[in-house]
């Protein structure tokens, strides 16, 4: 792939003899949303952490924008943004200060207001992080990871624990990030999320990638094998009802 920004070859990791990631390879294109799906314990988070230079790579190579992850961890950290599974921020610190703090970690001096406005948190600049709702926290966490304008953005299960409105809001936000030309790699175990959000997905199980394609193609392949859903498909489901009744957009937070 010529326009690949992330290249992973034969990546391996084991913990005390137990194989967590078993020689996986994939590439992520510039400006796409790449999803890694799989049940808990499939090795999704470990894979992400190795590419993010947070965890020692046992075997194989990972490369971002032509830079080897194992050899140049600090160069890698400077061009990636990371949203961990449960984002933690220090309390009693204003959002504007946290933005400055994260920018400073990258050696950047920024105007916090501009970043907070991007995620509709401009009026919360002087609030403390503990005063935000779950969805606001997620939005803040995303913008805090993007203060240095990274080339690749990693999200580990970004919508776990959010209500449907906040999830949809976050999906739009992630798409906006992608539309700015930033490649997005995310893990999830929600199939609907992968289908709506991801341009391509890799399905992992027991440390291996067992399928890698666009969601559409994967569904097509399954259908071509003669698969039929037993239940007949409705034009709406309960989630649509819920969203219709409670308002599709944001809560008036």
């Amino acid at each position: 792939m010529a326009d690949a920004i992330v290249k992973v070859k034969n990546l391996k990791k084991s913990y005390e003899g137990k194989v967590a990631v078993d020689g996986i390879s994939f590439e992520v294109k510039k400006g796409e949303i790449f999803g890694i799906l799989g049940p808990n314990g499939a090795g999704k988070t470990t894979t992400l952490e190795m590419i993010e230079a947070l965890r020692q790579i046992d075997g194989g190579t990972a490369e971002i924008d032509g830079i080897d992850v194992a050899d140049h961890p600090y160069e890698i950290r400077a061009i990636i943004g990371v949203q961990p599974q449960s984002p933690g921020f220090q309390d009693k610190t204003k959002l504007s200060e946290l933005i400055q703090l994260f920018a400073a970690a990258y050696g950047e001096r920024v105007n916090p207001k501009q970043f907070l406005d991007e995620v509709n948190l401009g009026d919360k600049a002087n609030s403390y992080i503990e005063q935000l709702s779950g969805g606001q926290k997620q939005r803040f966490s995303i913008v805090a990871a993007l203060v240095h304008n990274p080339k690749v953005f990693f999200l580990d299960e970004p919508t776990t624990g959010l209500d449907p409105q906040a999830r949809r809001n976050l999906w739009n936000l992630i798409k906006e990030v992608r539309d700015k030309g930033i490649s997005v790699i995310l893990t999830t175990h929600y199939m609907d999320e992968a289908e709506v959000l991801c341009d391509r997905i890799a399905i992992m199980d027991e440390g291996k990638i067992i399928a890698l394609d666009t969601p559409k193609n994967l569904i097509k392949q399954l259908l071509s094998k003669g698969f039929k859903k037993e239940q007949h498909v409705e034009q709406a489901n309960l989630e649509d009802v819920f969203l219709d009744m409670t308002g599709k957009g944001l809560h008036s937070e």
Partner: protein
Amino acid sequence: MRVILYLVIVFFVYRLAWRAFGKKWWANRETTAPVSKKPLGPVQRKFFTIWVFFVVNIKRLFRDGTALFFTFMFPLIFLFVFGSFSKNSGTNFHVAIINQSHSPLAKAYVHGLESSKIFKIDKSDTTLAQAKDRISKSQIDGIIVLPPGFGTQKTGQAPPNGQVQLLYSQSNASTGQTLTTVLQGTLKPFNARYVNLQQPFAVNSKALNQKNLTSFDYTFTGLLGFAILGAGIFGPMNVFPELKKMGILRRLHTTPLRVWQYFLSVMVGNAVVGLMSLALMLAVSIAVFHLHVVGNYLELAVFLAYGIVVILGIGLSLGGWAKNERQVAPLGNIIVFPMMFLSGVFFPRFLMPQWLQSVSTYLPLTPVIDGARFIVTEGKSLLDVGPQLAIMTVWLVVIYFIAFRVFRWE
């Protein structure tokens, strides 16, 4: 009463500081000020990072009531408690006076003893038997008895005379001898009044060191050490595992932030806040306990800042290594308690046996406390406390070597 008054004053100062730092001062300036677009150089960037971390964390501290209490008020409470102890032990001899004479001279003599600073007169005893009982319990050092007829003028031309009787415990012979000499001195002016004595030989004594070390001097520098110990070790030991638990350090780990940058921001922050806290202790000590600072304040500040940084390294090692609070608490106690009792925090080291003194000289906190005392009470310069600085520097290297080796982001 005075203590309460000072506590109230300190409380208001602290409230004011909280308002100034926590609400208005920095906050407004920072949200309204336009961001300068001047690009930073590569080295500047590294230190800009440290600066922003330092500023944000200081602001956070001033919004945290609990942290403020432990940083500023807690050492002060100790200062008041221990300060009032050491204030009472200023007198040298606790004695009881049994005056069995009714002569005006005896009265004058007793009055002279009472106004002397050398004696603390115990007035609870009225009979000799009571006083003897108290001496056997070591509650007083001696009994001064003026027998009946002391100082009365006998018929004839002879001047008034009498013998002061001193009773002391056999187990405390040296005190008895000293008291004897002191009492002889007290009789001198009386003798001179009646007999013109020209002594061919005499002792001419002269005090060499006018800056007499009081027990409060030891208490004060010991408590400085206590404050440094608390902020430098217990602070990071509690905060770091908490930061790890909340995933805050883990998140920082995803950025190019280096461990040394993070440590340096914590070091500068601790040194600045620590100096503020120590300055408050110093101010209270001067105001309430009449501490007489002989040394140079700037040199003292530099020395203490260095001490804070050295001791902080222990906290950074412990907190940086620990995955959670439970893991680090026992280890922290093993390290902190010997220093608390052997480095001269709660009682001066000269009270220890010689071998223990020579061992405790090399504990990391000992040179900090000793050096601070030398500067505060003896007016020594940074050059004079070179030996202390040398021990501290060896520890600095060792401690920070360990701190960097064992640090974990999660």
